[in-house]
């Protein structure tokens, strides 16, 4: 089955293979020689690049719950065509984050302990549970795609029967752990720099994940469009862009207001290591894309949207890395920079993610359902031909 919707990136395969191999070797070293010999983590800096990657992966995978909520709970059915790509993105994102978490743990062999040993006072415990449950929800939301391909229809009906509570549960779990990643740092007021520490961390993490999640959806649809498969017509993309602009505006207002009330604005008067990092984050990821998205011209142009949403994602990465690393450094006495092995493992896992995505898109019905499954589609106003539904009785998939 040939799908024309894929971007052609020359030399992608050798690059991905190299990265994955290098990552595998780095992971081998990490498991054989321990964290101390292979990472730059220390008692002073117990969390580093990998935690930053987790924040990033989860934040970008927010595309899953935002789009599912918009389409299936808020009934924005015109966005139906991007539901499956969004779920796929989220599913891969979460699996990769779980993988990185296990590599990051000092005792990977004990990774299952949070399942049976609870501590309800621990944010980490809540996050572990949310991650496990939401990954389960995502796999159930993803399962029909695989089952369609295999032409096993009865479990699809079964999943369809519980899909509403499942989706609501998924959205709630996402709300909880997206914000809880911020809550992780509530307990270190004496360590995290005043530009990032605030009791509002969970709220800020949540608002920004909405902007980054939707940006990922737009970026994806633009990349598919470049490959000739336009899932969303321009006006619908422009509407999504408006939601991003609103989220960015709310974020900036809450963030600046919070700095003001806590008296942390004075940290910004001098150009320091911290204030520069803060300016970079806020300007690149929030202020500039917000200004861009205010313009109709940007919202309706592919190139403009591409630039704006890319800025949101980069700024989001800045924000999470600043919270996880920069804000905890004591410049210049105590800083952290990841080791090569940490970087290789991270790049390798990222490459696995991209490869898995393009592989799955090639082999599974991500762009159009093959049978009238969990989400019967109506009033699709995408301007492309309606997909052919094959009924359960006449479901000969190979003949398509």
């Amino acid at each position, binding site marked *: 089955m040939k799908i024309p919707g894929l971007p052609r990136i020359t030399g992608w395969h050798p690059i991905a293979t190299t990265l994955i191999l290098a990552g595998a070797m780095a992971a081998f070293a990490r498991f054989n020689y321990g964290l101390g010999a292979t990472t730059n983590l220390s008692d002073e800096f117990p969390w580093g690049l990998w935690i930053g990657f987790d924040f990033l992966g989860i934040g970008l995978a927010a595309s899953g719950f935002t789009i599912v909520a918009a389409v299936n709970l808020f*009934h924005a059915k015109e966005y139906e065509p991007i539901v499956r790509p969004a779920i796929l993105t989220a599913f891969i994102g979460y699996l990769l984050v779980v993988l990185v978490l296990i590599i990051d*743990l*000092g*005792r990977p062999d004990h990774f299952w302990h949070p399942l049976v*040993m*609870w501590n309800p006072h621990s944010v980490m415990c*809540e996050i572990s549970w949310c991650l496990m449950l939401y990954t389960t929800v995502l796999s159930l939301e993803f399962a029909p795609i695989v089952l369609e391909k295999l032409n096993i229809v009865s479990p699809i009906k079964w999943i369809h029967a519980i899909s509403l509570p499942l989706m609501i549960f998924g959205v*709630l779990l996402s709300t*909880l752990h997206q914000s809880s990643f911020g809550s992780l740092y509530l307990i270190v007021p004496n360590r995290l720099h005043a530009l990032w520490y605030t009791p509002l961390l969970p709220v800020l993490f949540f608002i920004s994940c909405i902007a980054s999640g939707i940006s990922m959806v737009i970026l994806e649809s633009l990349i598919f469009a470049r490959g000739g498969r336009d899932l969303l017509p321009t006006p619908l993309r422009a509407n999504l862009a408006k939601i991003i602009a609103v989220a960015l505006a709310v974020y900036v207002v809450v963030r600046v207001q919070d700095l003001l009330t806590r008296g942390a604005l004075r940290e910004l008067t001098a150009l320091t290591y911290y204030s520069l990092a803060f300016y970079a984050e806020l300007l690149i990821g929030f202020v500039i894309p917000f200004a861009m998205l205010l313009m109709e011209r940007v919202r309706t142009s592919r190139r403009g949207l591409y630039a704006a949403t890319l800025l949101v994602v980069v700024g989001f990465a800045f924000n999470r890395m600043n919270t996880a690393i920069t804000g905890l450094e004591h410049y210049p006495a105590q800083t952290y920079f990841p080791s090569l092995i940490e970087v290789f493992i991270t790049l390798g896992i990222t490459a696995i993610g991209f490869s898995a995505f393009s592989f799955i898109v090639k082999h599974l019905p991500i762009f159009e359902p093959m049978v009238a499954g969990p989400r019967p589609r109506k009033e699709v106003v995408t301007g492309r031909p309606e997909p052919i539904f094959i009924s359960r009785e006449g479901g000969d998939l190979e003949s398509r």
Partner: protein
Amino acid sequence: MSQKKAMLIDLTLCVGCNACQGACKEENRLPPGEEKYLSLTAYTALDKYNDLYVRRMCQHCDVPTCVSVCPVGALSKTEAGPVAYDAEKCIGCRYCLQACPFHVPKYEWSSTKPRIQKCKFCASRLARGLQPACAEACPTGATQFGDREELLVEAARRINAEPAKFVHRIYGKDDVGGTSMFYLSPVPFEQLGFDSRMGKTPMPMLTMSALSKVPNVLSVGGVLLGGVWWITNRRAKVQAFEASQKKDPTRPPEDKP
């Protein structure tokens, strides 16, 4: 043993002989040799400030930050006072290293099965009715072991007896919600490397303000999202019905949503 135990560390009595560290190393079978900072092989160490020595070790907080952050309950506060660690439960997330306001836990980074290490408040000695090795070894009485309430009375008595000698504060009485290690000092604690920004509220309260909202988010959010779905779903049905009515007004009314 029901009484909570504590130690009173009177900095005016400490002569910096390091007997506490020596005894600690012997008790815990750690490699001997003087160490200046807390490490995997030094559960207690002496910081020197001009002519004052300050003992560092796990403070065995009353509401311990490390215990609250540990996702699997590998750290626990025991009734007698010590904060205990169970390496069999530990998953190695290192949140305790990140969160401890006193920077106490140290990690076995070079191991492939790493654990944290820190002062155990000689829990096994306490259970046998003995005092901690360091308190027993202290030749000047600078580290004194006893019941928490009695030691607080004693500390206050010392300050009242010689008000000019001490700053009028028992560090650890209610700092971060109270600890098991009380310090008396002749100079303000801020000059001795004590973090003055921590306040008297236990750190776990900072997290609980967010975590306590989890049940609310689940219940209110669930009802809200369910309601939103119901409204949007019904609106779509009504629209579909109205559209069909327009097309075919003779359609029987039992289809009405």
